[in-house]
């Protein structure tokens, strides 16, 4: 199967021990668009997302079959270098997890890991990405303060800046606004829309309205199976499957 898009999944199966979490998933994620993965909780949304950068590797007793092509490279291949896959993808988790260090060091963490030592260059990177996430004005006078002192909303934007600073091509978000206040959520959503001009964005969400507001492309999962995928209009206005219709109308959750 040839693949034009960044991420292309063929027959993906994920097991945790005896549990079959993802069943035969095949899909394509369009470039430079926002893709939303929706579905009731426990349907495997987060597992799918964490398969993309192989974070599921660190869970006990996990077994993965099938293939995930990122830029035509099967990242599930055992010989692949995971760190360079992960570098291509920024990740935002449900709750912001600032690393236990200063605001500056949080943003500089990725670039430093990938070998940038030059102080001036790091300064530029930090400033650039803090500006891009509207955080610069709020924190420029206390870059050396611990990141844990920021508000939750600020922390999540810092995590976004930290993710962007390794220059990914893809941004993964695991319900990135669910722990935030409405105003911070709005800022993050607006950021995603701006960023979608240059990045491929994939978010997991259980808030249907958020998916409607943001997504260009929607993937609907139910109990580990891919029920339907399509553009946002198709899925929300004109779903083909009964199950999708029922979920969108709130009959199943």
């Amino acid at each position, binding site marked *: 199967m040839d693949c034009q898009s960044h991420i292309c999944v063929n027959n993906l199966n994920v097991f945790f021990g005896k549990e079959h979490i993802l069943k035969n998933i095949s899909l394509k994620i369009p470039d430079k668009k926002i893709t939303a993965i929706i579905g009731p909780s426990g349907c495997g949304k987060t597992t799918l997302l*964490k398969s993309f*950068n192989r*974070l599921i590797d*660190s869970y*006990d007793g996990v077994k993965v079959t099938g293939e995930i092509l990122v830029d035509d490279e099967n990242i599930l291949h055992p010989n692949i270098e995971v*760190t*360079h896959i*992960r*570098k291509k*993808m*920024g*990740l935002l*988790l449900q*709750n912001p*997890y600032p*690393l*236990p*260090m200063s605001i500056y060091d949080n943003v500089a*963490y*990725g670039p430093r*890991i*990938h070998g940038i030592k030059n102080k001036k260059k790091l300064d530029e990177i930090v400033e650039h990405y803090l500006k891009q996430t509207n955080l610069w004005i709020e924190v420029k006078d206390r870059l050396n303060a611990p990141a844990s002192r920021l508000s939750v909303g600020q922390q999540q934007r810092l*995590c976004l800046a*930290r*993710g962007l600073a*390794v220059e990914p091509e893809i941004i*993964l978000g695991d319900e990135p606004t669910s722990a935030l206040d409405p105003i911070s959520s709005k800022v993050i959503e607006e950021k995603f829309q701006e960023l979608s001009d240059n990045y491929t964005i994939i978010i997991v969400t259980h808030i249907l309205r958020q998916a409607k507001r943001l997504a260009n492309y929607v993937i609907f999962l139910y109990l580990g199976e891919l029920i339907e995928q399509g553009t946002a209009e198709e899925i929300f206005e004109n779903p083909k499957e009964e199950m999708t219709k029922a979920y969108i109308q709130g009959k199943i959750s």
Partner: protein
Amino acid sequence: MKFRFLKDKFFKHLMFMCIVFSISIVFLMLFGLFIRSLPILQQKSFSDIFLSGTWHPLRGEFGFAPFIVGTLWVTVVAMVIAIPLCLLTAIYLSEYAHRRVTVFLKPFIDLLAGIPSVVYGIWGVLAVIPLIRDYIAPLFGVRSTGYGILAGGIVLGIMVFPIIIQICVEVFQSVPKELREASLALGATKWQTIKHSVLRKALPGILAAIVLGFSRAFGETMAVLMVVGNVPKIPKSIFDCAYPLPALIANNYGEMLSVPLYDSALMLASLILLLLVLIFNILARLILIRVERSTQ
């Protein structure tokens, strides 16, 4: 019917009394040992007791300096051995080791925590002392009987392995998985993630584990007594004999009532030991409580 509630009330108060009693032990100890050490504190000056290096109970000279210095030496040697080994092992157990390995190793370490100190002492006499006498000391060009600070340090270091490893593993497990994921997602290797994020987050907990290990080593008596040589002189090298405080107390309880002020001096030694260990423990426990809170 009423009786049930009366019983409930009665036992509630009884139980609370048990708690008050248990906690009061610390204060009773401080008070009891203080009263007993008052005579020597009143008759001797501070510098005679703590700075003087001469220990001649029969002549009424009670200089604690050799014992305090000896305790510190042995404990420090023990920690130098234990800290790197335990830290690396704890990281291995909580981050790298396969479940099959941890399932076997953890009960094994628990088992070791239960082995009595006399047994460690016997092992020291049988294995560590010949090792130092025949191999390690000649290597440094020193003649040694084997008994001394190094032997005490090695035995003590091994004795504190379980406690430091257990606490460190617990601390590493309390570091949220998401923190690791955040770092891994940026393309960090596992080791970079541990070095830059996990260890930093776990630092207070690691410190607490070290302090608790230190204070355990500090107060350990029998095993040390059997291998350090027990010479009341200020030691100059790790091959010298030492005479730690706990060994002093244990070795002389028999004759202490027959020499004036001797019992008071030994009780003062216990009081010093108690105070230092209390300070270490309170500090370490406060840190651990904060660590636990910050992860909830």
